[in-house]
């Protein structure tokens, strides 16, 4: 029952689900991701409804640089893999390798965010500002919401790395790491739809 049950003894195979608190956290976070699905879905639908309203600004076909998007996709996809390795290390109780994989994940996430910021700055110079058109507003809102999620994830996982280094792996820290990794996968899944719907479909027209 208590969060202390296994601290001193052997950790179970799935330490994130060893306590009721941990199971509650994992389930609650799954449901939260269900809500996040609706959140991003609504943003996508607003973008879909407004994507042809470019007014005087550049249309999607001319604007988007697919090379940059492909690079960002590769980085984020790889970071999703490294966060899977982190969870694997969690399940095999290898704290050092867990911390290492989390650090790599955060670094990749920061790289993705850097590319996105560079891309946004570039677009603004092309005359595609936030207030240019309904297309630009909905584009920056959708992709920006995703970017904000990445930024939050970076801060969150960094904080967890510090906690892991200080407190080690136990039944309190394990669920935190596990749901942070779920969050990171979810961000990756959302990005799959962003590069498909926003960039690739935008390029097709």
């Amino acid at each position, binding site marked *: 029952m208590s969060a202390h049950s296994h601290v001193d003894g052997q950790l179970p195979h799935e330490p994130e689900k060893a306590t009721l608190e941990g199971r509650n956290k994992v389930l609650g976070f799954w*449901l939260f991701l269900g809500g996040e699905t609706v959140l991003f879905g609504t943003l*996508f639908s607003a973008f879909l*409804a407004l994507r042809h309203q470019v007014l005087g600004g550049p249309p999607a076909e001319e604007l988007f640089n697919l090379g940059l998007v492909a690079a960002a996709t590769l980085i984020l996809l790889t970071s999703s*893999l490294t966060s899977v390795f982190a969870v694997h290390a969690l*399940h095999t109780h290898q704290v050092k390798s867990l911390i290492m994989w989390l650090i790599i994940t955060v670094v990749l996430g920061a790289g993705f965010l850097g590319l996105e910021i560079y891309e946004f700055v570039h677009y603004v110079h092309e005359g595609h500002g936030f207030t240019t058109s309904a297309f630009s507003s909905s584009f920056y809102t959708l992709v920006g919401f995703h970017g904000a999620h990445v930024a939050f994830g970076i801060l969150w996982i960094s904080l967890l790395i510090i906690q892991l280094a200080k407190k080690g792996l136990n039944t309190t820290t394990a669920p935190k790491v596990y749901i942070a990794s779920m969050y990171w996968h979810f961000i990756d*899944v959302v990005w799959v739809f962003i590069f498909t719907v926003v960039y690739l479909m935008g*390029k*097709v027209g």
Partner: protein
Amino acid sequence: MASNHSATEESTKRHKVEGPKKHVIAFIFSLALTLIAFAAVMGGEINKDFIYIILMGTAFLQVFVQMAFWMHMKDRGHTFALIGILGGVFIVFTCVIMAEYWAWW
């Protein structure tokens, strides 16, 4: 208790061998799907509707792969997780239909 314990250890060991390999395969699969999607768009003169179908197909397949393998959704005890996500997806579908058909006329 003791037998339970060794069973856990055994499954941990098995996990060690199979786990990362399985994830790398899923990763390669995701990369391939991403490549197909980008190639379809950059490749040139294919029918527009056909490209849309390829894009949606690869996107959903990739999400399925990632959710099932990386988010452990295919494992036991994920009934309510699945309901949560599918419920959200269902609402998203209605939103997309709205945006495509009922926003402009």
